C-alpha cells in the first residue's frame, strides 16, 4: 500500500530514526527543529481525513479515473535536441551529461552531527 507507516504512538511525534530514514530516501535535509515541527503539523492536518467514515466506499485509484487515457500513435516526432538539453548540464563531456561517480555514500550515521530534534 501507499500509506506510510503511521507513528506507532499516534501522538504525532516524529522520531529521529524516521527523520534519518526519510532524509536518506528523499535526499532532503530536514536540518532544523522547525522543519520537523512543520512536518508533524502537516501529518496532523492530513490525519483529519481519518475522521471521514469510508466504510463500504470503494477507494478511488486516481482523481483522473473517469478520464480517458489518450493513446498516441507510434511515430517519431521528438528528439534530436542534444545541444539544447546539454545546455542544462553543469558539466558536459562530448555530448554526455556528467554526473558524479556512481552513488556517493552519505556520511556514516555516527559521523553525522547529532540531530537537533530530540
Amino acid at each position, binding site marked *: 500500500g501507499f500509506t506510510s507507516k503511521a507513528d506507532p504512538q499516534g501522538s504525532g511525534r516524529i522520531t529521529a530514526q524516521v527523520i534519518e530514514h526519510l532524509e536518506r530516501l528523499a535526499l532532503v535535509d530536514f536540518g532544523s527543529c522547525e522543519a520537523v515541527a512543520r512536518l508533524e503539523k502537516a501529518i496532523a492536518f492530513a490525519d483529519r481525513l481519518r475522521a471521514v467514515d469510508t466504510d463500504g466506499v470503494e477507494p478511488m485509484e486516481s482523481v483522473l479515473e473517469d478520464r480517458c487515457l489518450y493513446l498516441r500513435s507510434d511515430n517519431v516526432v*521528438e528528439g534530436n535536441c542534444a545541444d539544447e538539453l546539454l545546455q542544462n548540464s553543469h558539466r558536459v563531456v562530448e555530448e554526455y551529461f556528467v554526473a558524479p561517480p556512481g552513488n556517493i555514500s552519505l556520511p556514516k550515521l555516527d559521523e553525522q552531527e547529532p540531530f537537533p530534534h530530540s
Partner: protein
Amino acid sequence: MLRWVGRGRLWTFARVDGGSCHRREAPTGSTSNWIRGQSSVAQQPLCMTQKPRKGEHKWAAVVGLEIHAQISSNSKLFSGSQVRFSAPPNSLVSFFDASLPGTLPVLNRRCVEAAVMTGLALNCHINKKSLFDRKHYFYADLPAGYQITQQRLPIAVNGSLTYGVCAGKKQSQVIPKTVRIKQIQLEQDSGKSLHDDLRSQTLIDLNRAGVGLLEVVLEPDLSCGEEAATAVRELQLILQALGTSQANMAEGQLRVDANISVHHPGEPLGVRTEVKNLNSIRFLAKAIDYEIQRQINELENGGEILNETRSFHYQLGCTMSMRDKEGKQDYRFMPEPNLPPLVLYDATSLPAGADPQQVINIDQIRETLPELPSVTRERLVQQYGMLLEHSFTLLNEVGLLEFFQNVIKETRAEPKKVTSWVLNTFLGYLKQQNLAVSESPVTPSALAELLDLLDSRTISSAAAKQVFEELWKREGKTPGQIVSEKQLELMEDRGALEQLCHSMMEAHPQVVMDLKKGNPRAINKLIGLVRKATQSRADPAMIKEILEKKLSS
C-alpha cells in the same frame, strides 16, 4: 579512458539511500565468441544438485526470474523520441525523457498492443483496467528520480510459459515443462551510465531513457540453470515470433535477473539472493548453477545466506556480492498522478462509435496473433514428418528454419531428406566453423539444387557430400558445375560398368575364389575396388547386383 560498465567490473560504489540500490547496467557489446563454440546448454545433467553427504538430506533449489524485454516500437513508451540501438549520445531524447519540468507522459498505443499480444501468447489474464505507478530511487541515469511502472495493477497476470527440456541418453527426448507467469507490466527503461574511474565521473546518455519495457515476472517454479535457460530461450522465440521485442540479449533488448534460494524438500524456503549482470543465455545457466552450488556449500559448512544482490563475473565463472549493508530499498510507490487508468476492451465491451485509434480491442489482437513457436514445431512435425527434437533444433538456431523452408520450396527431394541434410550436414559444417546461418557459404538454392541431383540419381550420396564440401569453399560454382568439373555423375552406362566389374574380377582372382568359397564379406572388397575405379561415380547397389550376377553365372 572510457569504457562501458558491465562484464568483469567489480561494483564499488556505496549507496546513497538505504538498501540495495537498483543497478540496471545494460549488457552492451557482443557476446564473446567462445559461447557459440561450446556444447549446448542441454548437455548438462537435468537439475542435478550436489550429491548429499552421508546422513544429509537432499537439496532443492528454487529459481525465480524477472525478465525485462525492450518493446520493439518506433518511439518510446511515454514520448515521441526514437527507439534505436546506436545513435549519437543524447540525440534520441525528448524534453520529457530528460525530465524537464512541465513535461507530461503520453502513452504509446503500440506499446500497449505489444503488452496485450505478449500477455495473450503467454496465456495470461489481461486486466481490462491497469494502473501506472511511480517507483522512486536515485541514480544519475534516471533523471526524474522515479520510474513509471505498473506495481499495483499490471496489464497481464497469471499466465504460463511451456518449454521443452532435452533429456535422455542423447538429449534426444523433449520433456515439456511449464513455469507460471506471475505478471507482465509496462515500464520505462533508464538511460545508460559510462563510468570514467580515471576522472571520477559518470557520463550519462539518455537515449535509452523512456524506452518501453515489458517486465515478465516468473513464479519460482524453476529449479536449475538449464530450466531457466530453456525457459528464457522459449520466451525469446515467442517475443521474436510476435514481433513485440527483438529480445537480443547481446544488445540489451532482453535482460534477466534471477532470484535463487535452496532448501531441503519439505522444509521452508531458504534466504534468496538476487543475481544480476546476466547478458547471455549461456551465462544465465552458469550463474544460476554456480549460485545454487555456492549456497549449498555455504549452508553445509554451517554458514548462512545473506539476502543480497550478487553480480555474475563470467571470466571467473562465479557470483560476487554487490555488498550491501544498509537494509532494504524503499521505493515509495505512489500512483502516477498524470495518467488515468489504462482501460482495454473486448468485442462485447467495445463502446459504440468509439474512435478506433483510441480503443484497444483484446479480441481483435487475439485474432491477429502470429503463429507461436510451439505451434510451428507441431506443424513441422505434422507437415514434414520430422521428430519433435528436430523441430526444436530448427527453431533454436537463428535463421535455420527460414533456410530449411527455402530449401523445401526449391527442391523436389523428400522433406525427410531435406531435414537430414539441413540438421546434420549443413548445421554440422556451421557449428564446426562457428558460423551463423546468415554467414553460410551455401545458399538454400544451392542446397536445393544439390538435393535435386541426388534425388534424380544423377549423383550418389557420397558424391553429394563431396559437392557440398566444394560448395562450402565459396568459389561461386553451382552444384551442377562442380559435378561436371569433377565428373561425379553416376555412371549411367550399365555396359561400361559391367565391363569394369568384369576386369576387376579378372584382376583379383583371390577375392573371387574367396567369394566362391562362400565368404560373403569378400564381395564388399570387390565392390570397394570397383567404386574406387569409378571414383565413386557408380551406385554401390548396382555394382553389387552386377557382381552377384556375374558370380552366379
